[in-house]
C-alpha cells in the first residue's frame, strides 16, 4: 500500500480526482513539493493542486495564536448587558452560566457551558497538541489523533450558539428603559475566537499526522533493500 504522494500522484482536495505529477514538476526540488506550491490545476474542477495544504502548519499556528490572544478579552470582558428599569447588569460568559444556574435553569446552563466554555477550550488544546505532535513527528496513535481532529472540526461551529442567543435577545428585548439588552465587546471577541479556531481547523492538514509514519516506513524499506 502506498500513499498518493509516494506514488507520485496528487489527489484533488475537492473532487478527489487523482492526477499524475507531470515530468517538469518531478524535476522541481523536493522542497518546493513539500511546501505544496500549486503548480498544476485539477483537470476536473480546476482547483489548484497540492499534495498537502500549502503552509498548513504555519497558517494553523498563526490562526490558533490569534484565537488564543482573543480568548482573553472574550472571557474577561462582558458579552452583554441586560438593562432592567434603567439599571445595567453586564455579564461575562462564565457569569451568564452562573446566573442561569442560580435561576435554576441548569439544563440551559449546562448547554451554554458546553458550547461556550468546554468546546472552545477543547478545540484550543486539541489543535495545539495536534500541531506539536506533527512538529515532533510523533508516531503514537495516528488513528485516534485523526479522530480527534475530525471531532474538533465538527463541533467547533456549535460555539456560535451563544452569539446567536445574544443577537436574538438584542433584537427582541428592546423596551426602552424598562428592559433592554445590549451586546458588549466580549461578544465580538468570542465570535472572533470561534471563527479563528474554525479557520485554524480548516487549514490543518490531517495527512501530516500520517506523514511521520509513512516517512519512517519508507526509510526502513530503503534500509532493508
Amino acid at each position: 500500500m502506498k500513499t498518493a504522494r509516494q506514488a507520485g500522484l496528487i489527489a484533488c482536495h475537492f473532487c478527489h480526482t487523482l492526477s499524475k505529477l507531470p515530468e517538469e514538476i518531478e524535476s522541481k526540488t523536493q522542497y518546493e513539493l513539500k511546501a505544496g506550491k500549486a503548480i498544476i490545476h485539477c483537470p476536473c474542477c480546476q482547483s489548484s493542486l497540492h499534495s498537502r495544504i500549502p503552509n498548513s502548519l504555519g497558517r494553523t499556528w498563526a490562526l490558533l495564536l490569534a484565537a488564543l490572544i482573543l480568548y482573553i478579552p472574550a472571557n474577561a470582558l462582558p458579552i452583554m448587558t441586560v438593562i432592567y428599569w434603567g439599571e445595567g447588569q453586564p455579564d461575562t460568559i462564565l457569569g451568564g452560566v452562573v446566573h442561569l444556574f442560580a435561576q435554576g435553569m441548569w439544563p440551559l446552563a449546562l448547554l451554554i457551558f458546553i458550547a461556550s466554555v468546554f468546546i472552545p477550550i477543547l478545540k484550543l488544546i486539541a489543535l495545539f497538541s495536534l500541531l506539536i505532535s506533527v512538529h515532533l513527528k510523533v508516531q503514537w496513535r495516528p488513528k485516534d489523533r485523526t479522530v480527534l481532529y475530525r471531532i474538533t472540526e465538527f463541533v467547533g461551529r456549535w460555539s456560535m450558539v451563544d452569539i446567536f442567543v445574544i443577537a436574538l435577545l438584542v433584537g427582541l428585548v428592546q423596551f426602552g428603559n424598562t428592559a433592554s439588552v445590549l451586546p458588549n465587546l466580549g461578544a465580538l471577541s468570542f465570535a472572533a475566537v470561534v471563527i479563528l479556531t474554525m479557520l485554524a481547523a480548516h487549514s490543518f492538514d490531517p495527512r501530516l499526522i500520517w506523514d511521520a509514519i509513512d516517512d519512517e516506513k519508507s526509510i526502513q524499506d530503503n534500509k532493508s533493500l
Partner: protein
Amino acid sequence: MNSNNLNHIASIPSISRLACPDCDLIQTIPPLANNEVANCIRCGATLFKQQKNSINRSLAFAITGLILFIISNLFPLLSLKAIGLTQESSLLSTAFSLLEVNQLLLSIIILLTTFIFPATTLLGTIYILMQIKMNRINCYTAPLFRFLRSTDAWGMLEIFLLAILVAMVKLGDVADVIYGISLYAFCLLILSLSLLSYSLNPHDVWNKLRDSNGCSL
C-alpha cells in the same frame, strides 16, 4: 494550464481508486451495494457512499428547503410581548438589530452565517443539480460547486435554531413569547437541510461533471 491536461488524470471514468482525504493512502473501492459506505482501512474516513438517485432526491430536498427558507423569512420567527409592546424578530432583523447598536462586525457575521451562506447553498445547489439533470454543464459549474463545498460549514441555521430555543426558554419566564408559522417552517427547513446534506453525494456530482466534459479547457 496546458492543452495536454487530460493526460495526467490517473483515473478517469468513475472513481474506483481513491486517495484517502485524511491520510493519503491509495485504495481501490470495491463495487458497493446501494447505501453501502466504503471507509478508509487505515484511518476510518468515509471514502465513498453508494446512493441510488442521490441527485433527484437532493434536488427535491433543496427545492423544499428554498420554499421553507422563503416562508420563514416572510413572517417573524419570534415575537415578545411585554408592557403592552410587541417586539418581533426574523432572520434578517436579528442581523440588522446589531447594526442599530453599533456592532457592525457582529451584524455582518450573523448576516453571513444565518442568511447569505444558507441562501447561496440552497440556490447554488438547485442551480447545479438542474444543470446536471438538463445536461447543461458549463465552465462555471465545477468552480461553483467547489465554492459551495468550501462554504458549507459557514451556514449555521441549525445552530441558530438551537439559539432560538435557548432564547425562548430564557425569555419565557419574564415575558410572553409568541411564535407562529415561520418558526414551524424554520424547523422543517432545518430538517430538509439535514436531509439534503445526507442525500447529496459529492462524488456523484463530481463524476457527472468529470464525464460531461462540458468545459473544454
